[in-house]
């Protein structure tokens, strides 16, 4: 690698929000410097996501471009994105990962500011490895849950999928399900973080806490005729001559089984 490295000094802090991390990332990129440590205020609190509030937003933009961030962060995000959309994508994914990787991410942003965006493909760098692996874990979980989310009718008839993802990815699933549901409404509820994202009458909204959990289908009534048909189908389609449960668990880890009607309860 090139000799000059970004300066690493002191502690930077932010409120744990995506906007906050984007602002720090832009600062690191613009100044060519990064902190030794990052204090994440939000990570130390418990009811964090109530702060998100029920503000409407456009999900297609939320995790693919900076246009839905608050104004200051939007400008910072736009500048980062113009510099390198891949780098901006890493910032988003590190935020979603909820892993304490901000110092590595900011060093990478600083180095990219100094030497150009191609530093993010230098897989010999330990910062690149750390950040890229975390981003890959987030992407894998998004891929997985695009397939493994299970919808059933909620209390008001709205089709809703409960999720308990490792990373904070529920909102990142919205563009996929918006496309998939076409003209129909739906909701996604992150049970772990008590967050809901719903499209009702064609408009998107986010909610948190009890309001979010109110979308959830009643587990007693969720197992209906269609679910039973699916369970029968799933059982019939397995080829007993080729049983390989280890492979099944590797591809579909046990932690996702809870919400899969075809396999929930089977261990």
């Amino acid at each position, binding site marked *: 690698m090139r000799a000059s490295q970004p300066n690493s000094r002191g502690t930077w802090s932010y409120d744990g929000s995506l906007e906050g991390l984007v602002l720090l990332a832009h600062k690191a990129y613009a100044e060519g410097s990064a902190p030794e440590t990052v204090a994440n205020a939000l990570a130390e609190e418990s009811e964090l996501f109530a702060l998100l509030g029920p503000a409407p937003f456009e999900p297609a933009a939320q995790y693919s471009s900076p246009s839905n961030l608050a104004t200051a962060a939007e400008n910072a995000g736009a500048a980062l994105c113009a510099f390198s959309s891949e780098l901006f994508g890493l910032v988003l994914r590190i935020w979603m990962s909820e892993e304490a990787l901000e110092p590595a991410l900011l060093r990478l942003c600083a180095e990219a500011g100094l030497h150009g965006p191609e530093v993010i*493909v230098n897989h010999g760098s330990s910062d690149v490895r750390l950040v890229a692996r975390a981003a890959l874990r987030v992407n*894998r979980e998004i891929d997985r849950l695009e397939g493994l989310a299970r919808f059933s009718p909620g209390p008001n008839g709205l089709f809703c999928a409960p999720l308990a993802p490792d990373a904070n990815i529920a909102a990142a699933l919205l563009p996929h399900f918006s496309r998939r549901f*076409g003209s129909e409404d739906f909701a996604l509820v992150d049970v772990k973080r008590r967050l809901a994202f719903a499209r009702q009458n064609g408009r998107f909204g986010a909610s948190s806490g009890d309001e979010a959990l109110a979308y959830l289908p009643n587990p007693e009534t969720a197992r209906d005729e269609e679910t039973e048909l699916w369970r029968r189908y799933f059982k*019939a389609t397995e080829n007993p001559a080729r049983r390989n449960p280890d492979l*099944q668990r590797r*591809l579909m880890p046990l932690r996702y089984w809870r919400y899969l009607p*075809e396999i929930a309860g089977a261990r």
Partner: protein
Amino acid sequence: MDLGDKLEILAAAARYDASCASSGSSRASGAPGSAKGGLGASRPAGVCHSWTGDGRCVSLLKVLYSNSCRKDCAYCVNRSSVEVDRASFTVEELVSLTIGFYRRNYIEGLFLSSGIFADADIVMEKLVEVARVLREREGFGGYIHLKAIPGSSNKLLRKAGRYADRLSANIELPTASSLARLAPQKSGQEILGAMRFMSQTEAESREDSGRLRSTPRFAPAGQSTQLVVGASPEDDRTIIRLAGALYGRLGMRRVYYSAFVPVSTDPRLPILRSPPLVREHRLYQADWLMRFYGFKPEEILDSGEANLSSELDPKTAWALRHPEFFPVDVERADYAALLRVPGVGVTGAGRIVSTRHVGHIRPEDLGRMGIVMKRARYFLSLGGRPLSALDPEGLRLQLADGGAPQASTWDQSPPGMGTLAAKAQMEFSFA
């Protein structure tokens, strides 16, 4: 018989078809020319919605329209001479199941095949009708894979391609003589004829839509086929060459290999204690070499051997037969040469090339890039110095994987276009 009973029978009857991919097509919901909104969309990478106990991706509702069949193919669980429960769906039942399962995110769409319960055209008409109702009445934008019934008219095949994302006609057995022996009522000419027609029509449609974007595409995800492995005496060389020809001459998107599962005591069939899964796995590995690693069919078994090694994967076997090609230098070799190195997959080769642009690569970096060093180090050099000595005879034992059970190679998305998870699996299973 209720719908659940039919579903069980017709899903079990379809489970020996290996294909379940939902990739290669991009489509939004809504009936063409209609203001009515619809449900569903498909995307090029496809999505797996579950994995069965055999590790197979469940992406589509894969069923037969009917398991009643006039034909008596020795290897088939639905052959006319066997006594099994027979059932048929109605068009409306299939439409309702597809939409219901899709809305719950159980599936990406429908894979519909059928036993030959009547003339080919009548069977094909039923399959096309299901697809037509889904697309035109329901505005369904999800994935549809229809089986092309050999012997049905070109008009019906053309119509099927208008509604379906993918079409397939299973070749089943690799030679005409095996087909004549085990499936005498099937005609190789009819199967190949259907394949040729679909290939030509797809090419024409691609050309037309290049000129005029509003031209409806014919089966935009192309066609696939399946070969049963182990029911007939053909060797791997024959199968690989046939697959190479199907890719090269008929523009096949996928050839699936299905290890023969003994389902009858027909004396024409070999006696197997279990399906030849290792052989099937090796054929998939060889297939990936042809499709993504730049190998020609004749290179894969180029030493006069008729079958792939059960101990070594075909890429390692090739490398050990060609020590003159190695070591490949990490700093200078092009992407295609890197892909020939055992332990280097598509992702790893790409990372080496991109990292070279920004800095030097050290030996310790290679493992971190996803290179499987316990294999690759014997075939790589760095700055002109080999990382380890290459001793083909000693390595043969050391690198044997004994036909390690496969990660799911049936329905992975191709490198460069698939989901990251699929790519990771591919690296795992193959590099």
